[in-house]
């Protein structure tokens, strides 16, 4: 059976399971649609939260982002600590109290606690900005995974994915989504860990990748630690060591904090804790969620670092037992003919891996040529200009002119090679031009793993199903957060408060359909800021929703005026700071400052700014509350009541 058929079967089976669950878990009331009827077991909810939380980015990209980071893998630990540490904040500061509050949405709590329709509306705006930016990446993830594994176009893949989400999210609501997410978690965690275990066994002899990461490197006899081996090989080739210290401790600190409080403030995660029966369950469920998340997050750095070493030793066979430069680089002949290197050919075809024999020696030299960045860019520009002119049938004189420009750019790069050294010799002395691994996409570090470890075809098919599960489960959670904000907070909350239970359920289903259509459209026409989305979504969640919720629970004095101004300041400050460096509304070319550390205020990167936005939100809210009227008596009673677990019972619609 060929790989394509196998992928089709495995993905088809998982999709059939999801649709089957959708039919079984049809929502019959708004309580079921918004909060799965508050009857979800805390362990089940933990598993569903794990799938809800772990997105296409966690599954496909995170290991590669850590492994291939120019500043070294250690600096990227911010993702590992940030995306797990946020659950501690959720468990301690938010989940139990919001569960006791016992209603269905995050804006509803903010509206009730700050006794203001305006505050509720502002929370809806923040929620929709955060969730929409986040969902675009998931829809893209679905499309891209389909196109890589199932030979359909990205757009077609997106339509199929949207149809599946439609099936269980529109009919099942939170109930359908919860039980589908449990199934999706199982698929994604198996798909992630099986290749990791085999790679860890091959490189370190350790069955658990978590132990392999700190174990010894086996192929060279085992007297060198795996991490030391990785550092040795990559630094030899001019890259930053995997374990190198961070270039900016301040930014690592602030970025980690921003991801943690952002995680705790993400509405689609918070609403998962409305589904358990009791306050005590909300506490333990956060722990179970972290158990299931940690299964992937503690494996991810092992997957990334091991894939990086595997990739490097593939390019430099001498590095397996000795130094990278002891032997020649991998030859084009080996890549074409060696069955063990078939994965290189596979991934070259997808364009995620681009190899070019620039110096024409029949080998692929992989090294860090960051010092040639300007020259590389010039060659790239000249190549593109020539190709464009040829495609447009420009006249011969123009072609000759552009050919001369390209030749000059190439000459300049070769000349610069006399100043760049690798392993004590200049590129000129070695006869190298530039890094011949022109592109290696982060995603390869996970997607190519089963092939690198020579695992059977069904494991590859499982990775495809796992990537789809990760993207679909997160998309569904986000869509539910968006649609409940529309039907419960906007329609029931302000437009038509007298809507019947049946009417609201219908409105919720229509809102869900609407949210799916919008996010599919955005996935088909991405605004071109996919990479920046993380900064915006987490920055805003950290600077708006988290502080508002926390002050609502832990302070009886913060009032309407304080909360609204605090959220506004957090929202405006954080988005403006990000836009200054990434362009207004991410439109390319409209950025005010170049996105380089030299331009940052106090050296703070736009990625890390959510922490500062949160501090401003707290400061403004307390200051304004101190000089305005204290909240009314019934709000103080509300705060006293959510602080005590007894009586959570069933949530009330109103």
């Amino acid at each position, binding site marked *: 059976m060929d790989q394509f058929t196998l992928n089709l079967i495995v993905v088809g089976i998982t999709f059939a399971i999801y649709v089957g669950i959708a039919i079984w878990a049809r929502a019959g009331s708004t309580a079921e649609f918004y909060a799965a009827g508050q009857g979800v077991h805390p362990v089940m909810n933990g598993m569903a939260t794990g799938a809800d939380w772990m997105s296409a980015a966690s599954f496909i990209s995170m290991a590669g982002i850590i492994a291939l980071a120019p500043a070294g*893998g*250690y600096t990227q*630990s911010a993702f*590992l*600590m940030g995306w*797990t*540490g946020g*659950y*501690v*904040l959720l*468990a*301690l*500061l938010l989940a*139990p109290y919001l569960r*006791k509050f016992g209603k269905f949405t995050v804006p509803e709590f903010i509206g009730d606690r700050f006794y203001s329709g305006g505050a509720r509306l502002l929370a809806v705006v923040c929620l929709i900005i955060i969730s929409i930016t986040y969902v675009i990446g998931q829809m893209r993830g679905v499309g891209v995974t389909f196109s890589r594994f199932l030979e359909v176009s990205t757009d077609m893949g997106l339509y199929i994915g949207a149809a599946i989400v439609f099936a269980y999210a529109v009919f099942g609501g939170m109930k359908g989504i919860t039980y589908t997410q449990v199934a999706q978690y199982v698929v994604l965690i198996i798909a992630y860990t099986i290749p990791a275990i085999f790679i860890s066994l091959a490189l370190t002899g350790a069955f658990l990748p*978590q*132990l392999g*990461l*700190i*174990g*010894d490197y086996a192929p060279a006899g085992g007297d060198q*630690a*795996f*991490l*030391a081996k990785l550092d040795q090989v990559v630094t030899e080739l001019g890259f930053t060591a995997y*374990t190198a*210290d*961070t270039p900016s*401790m301040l930014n*690592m*600190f602030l970025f*980690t*904090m921003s991801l943690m409080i952002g995680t705790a403030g993400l509405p689609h995660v918070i609403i998962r804790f409305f589904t358990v029966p*009791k*306050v*005590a369950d909300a*506490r*333990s469920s*956060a*722990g179970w969620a*972290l*158990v299931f998340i*940690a299964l992937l*997050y*503690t494996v991810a*750095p092992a997957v990334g670092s091991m894939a990086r070493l595997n990739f490097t030793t593939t390019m430099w066979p001498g590095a397996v037992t000795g130094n990278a430069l002891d032997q020649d680089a991998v030859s084009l002949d080996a890549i074409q003919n060696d069955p063990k290197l078939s994965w290189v050919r596979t991934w070259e075809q997808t364009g995620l891996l681009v190899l070019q024999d620039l110096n024409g020696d029949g080998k692929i030299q992989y090294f860090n040529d960051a010092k040639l960045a300007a020259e590389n860019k010039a060659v790239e520009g000249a190549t593109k200009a020539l190709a464009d002119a040829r495609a447009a049938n420009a006249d011969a004189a123009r072609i000759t002119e552009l050919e001369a420009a390209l030749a000059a750019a190439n000459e300049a790069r070769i000349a610069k090679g006399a100043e760049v050294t690798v392993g004590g010799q200049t590129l000129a002395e070695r006869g190298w031009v530039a890094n011949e691994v022109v592109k290696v996409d982060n995603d390869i570090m996970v997607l190519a793993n089963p092939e690198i470890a020579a695992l059977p075809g069904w494991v590859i098919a499982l990775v495809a199903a796992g990537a789809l599960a990760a993207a679909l489960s997160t998309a569904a959670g986000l869509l539910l957060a968006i649609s409940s904000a529309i039907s419960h907070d906007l329609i029931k909350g302000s437009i038509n408060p007298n809507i019947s239970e049946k009417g609201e359920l219908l409105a919720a289903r229509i809102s869900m359909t609407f949210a799916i259509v919008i996010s599919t459209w955005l996935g088909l026409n991405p605004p071109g800021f996919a990479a920046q989305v993380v900064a915006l979504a987490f920055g805003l969640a950290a600077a708006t929703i988290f502080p508002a919720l926390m002050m609502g629970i832990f302070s009886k004095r913060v009032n309407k005026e304080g909360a609204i101004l605090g959220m506004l300041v957090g929202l405006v400050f954080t988005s403006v700071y990000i836009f200054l460096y990434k362009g207004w509304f991410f439109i390319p070319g409209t950025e005010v400052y170049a996105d380089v550390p030299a331009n940052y205020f106090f050296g703070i990167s736009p990625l890390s700014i959510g922490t500062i936005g949160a501090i401003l939100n707290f400061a403004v809210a307390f200051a304004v509350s101190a000089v305005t009227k204290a909240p009314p008596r019934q709000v103080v*009673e509300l705060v*006293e*009541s959510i*602080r*005590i*677990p*007894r*009586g*959570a019972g069933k949530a009330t619609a109103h």
Partner: protein
Amino acid sequence: MVDRTGHVTSDRTSSNAYWSANVRIILISLAIWFACSFGLGIILRPALEGIMVGGADLGFWFAQQGSIYVFLVLIFVYAWRMNKLDREYGVDE
């Protein structure tokens, strides 16, 4: 005391004592949360150079593995302590 529906009916001091005990548990937990991630994983890493956990230095290990394990234990211990506290003050469900 607190009646079955969660409304504070009398004895405000008891519910205040419950809340301050709760806040104390939260503060201790947050101190541990901060110490293992921001402390050992980031700020103290340069100072702890040379202390190894297998093939990784202590700061690196806490940043990529250890802090996550501490978070896990922390949440379950917190949940257990809070459940105990709920029972002591008679506010459990």
